[in-house]
């Protein structure tokens, strides 16, 4: 299935690109606890990559390593063919990696529009002084950014709540606003931490559609964590399976589904 000249072809015949993010031998410890044990995997350009595993497997920790919220004790993170030095989360964000959070981290006091505009901050370059004096350049920049933000708001179908303070929104819509904010950064890599957690079937279908559309229309590479196996198998191109901080499977949904170790982990076979 792998072809080194033409990249990689997925199960349903989709062509995906070269390796964008390469995690090599990542080990993450909290005190004496090893949350991630020597895990390597890659994320290819244009694909939807899922990380799955039972509770406490270390999936969120892995996402936090990618987004710079945790720095691993061992291992290397390679991004676009360059080894990444230890970085702060805001520096990772400025490299074009946007994310959402499992428990939603929005600016609750701000309107939906303001929240999504915050996602544009990495793309706005006007300096402090010209901003303070409000010269033409800053104004033009604001207008241009507003246009793109409105497009994203239309795309995710949240026009009706543009001016609503986020704190008043129901859970499902908050998740969507958070996705909008991440998209506003025009990220090269989009990280989604359980984008469908706590949603009903209809909301899950909507979110799945948005994720597929984002990947399709903007060509955004997506790495996501999800519990709902049906969803994962449906939308992802390749899947990493983690259990107790180890990687126990890696491949197409079909390969992973037939992997004995993965079946054991999900059915709860005793560990030796």
């Amino acid at each position, binding site marked *: 299935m792998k072809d080194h000249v033409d990249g990689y072809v997925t199960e349903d015949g989709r062509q995906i690109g070269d390796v964008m993010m390469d995690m090599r031998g990542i080990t993450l410890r909290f005190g004496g606890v090893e949350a991630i044990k020597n895990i390597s995997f890659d994320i290819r350009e244009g694909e939807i990559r899922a990380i799955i595993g039972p509770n406490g497997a270390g999936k969120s920790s892995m996402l936090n390593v990618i987004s710079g919220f945790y720095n691993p004790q061992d291992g290397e993170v390679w991004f676009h063919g360059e080894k990444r030095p230890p970085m702060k989360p805001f520096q990772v964000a400025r490299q074009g990696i946007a994310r959402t959070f499992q428990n939603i981290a929005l600016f609750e006091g701000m309107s939906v529009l303001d929240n999504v505009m915050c996602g544009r901050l990495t793309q706005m370059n006007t300096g402090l002084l010209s*901003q*303070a004096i409000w010269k033409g350049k800053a104004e033009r920049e604001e207008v241009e950014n507003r246009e793109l933000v409105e497009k994203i708001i239309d795309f995710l179908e949240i026009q009706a709540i543009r001016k609503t303070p986020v704190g008043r929104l129901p859970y499902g819509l908050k998740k969507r606003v958070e996705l909008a904010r991440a998209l506003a950064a025009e990220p090269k890599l989009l990280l989604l931490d359980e984008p469908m957690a706590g949603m009903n079937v209809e909301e899950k279908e909507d979110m799945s559609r948005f994720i597929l559309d984002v990947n399709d229309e903007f060509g955004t590479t997506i790495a996501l964590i999800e519990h709902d196996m049906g969803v994962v198998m449906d939308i992802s191109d390749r899947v990493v399976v983690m259990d107790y901080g180890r990687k126990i499977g890696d491949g197409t949904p079909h390969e992973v589904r037939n992997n004995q170790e993965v079946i054991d982990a999900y059915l709860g076979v005793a560990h030796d």
Partner: protein
Amino acid sequence: MMSADFLYGIEVVLNGLMAGVLYALVALGFVLIFKASGIFNYAQGVMALFAALTLVGIMEGQVPFAHMINAIFGTEVHHFGWHVPAFAAIIMTLGVMVLFAWAVQQFIFKHLVGQEPIILFMATIGLAYFLEGVGDLMWGSNIKTLDVGLPQGGSRWIEDMTASLGDDSFYGFFIDKLDMVATVVAAILVLSLIAFAQYSKQGRAMRAVADDHQAALSVGISLNFIWVLVWSLAGLVALVAGIMWGAKSGVQFSLSLIALKALPVLMLGGFTSIPGAIVGGLIIGVGEKLFEYTIGGMMGGATENWFAYVLALIFLVFRPQGLFGEKIIERV
């Protein structure tokens, strides 16, 4: 023709409003830092003192640390022998306050991220005493007059214009010109701060940090940068407050005590609200002047010393989050 008592009452309210604006200005410095970083900055008053000292020092061409230099090298330097115009000196002082903001973040609060509020508060107490000492060491501890060219004394114009409102015993409203300037300056400062926070990129980032640190990081905001920015803005507010109070009553240690006046203002207005700081300041300013004018005499006077605190205490009992503060709801 209105009764003289009523007209004096109005004059008291007007003067109270203007005193209130100055209280609001100091309170604003607290709110800026508290909102963005959760630090209650005890040093805000000393920052106003330090800014005023630095401004006088620069204007008069004082050699900083002159005492120390003379003691170590046996020299006798005190002045450079030049005078700096007020406007240039204000810009330079602002530069010093920005440098101070950077140093505070770099050497103190960067290392205290995620600590308990009480620890951050203790750090600002230490900072207050340190800054007070540095101010003394740099510019000397004598009382200085600050003259940046602001008008002094009562406004004749207003007196003349309003004298006809009452009978012969009424000479018109007495309004201090400096208070009027202070009111206008404070109003401009507050409006520009609100506009900056609302419409600029950095202002949006500032509000984002005030709202949620984690989310702010995830959209590429450097918390360090924002904290230096808010400390700089607090420095700007301290400088303006220092100029106004310094011009009014001289630059001396007691200037740092205006910070204590800001506390009841904050309790009234809420620690996280800019409009709250303004309205709280006005209520306290008017309240204490009016109380002194109407009831003060019966209680032996000098009620202005404690009125604000008692008012704040009453507020604490009935509305602990202040007029505009966010209500704290705890889910069980």
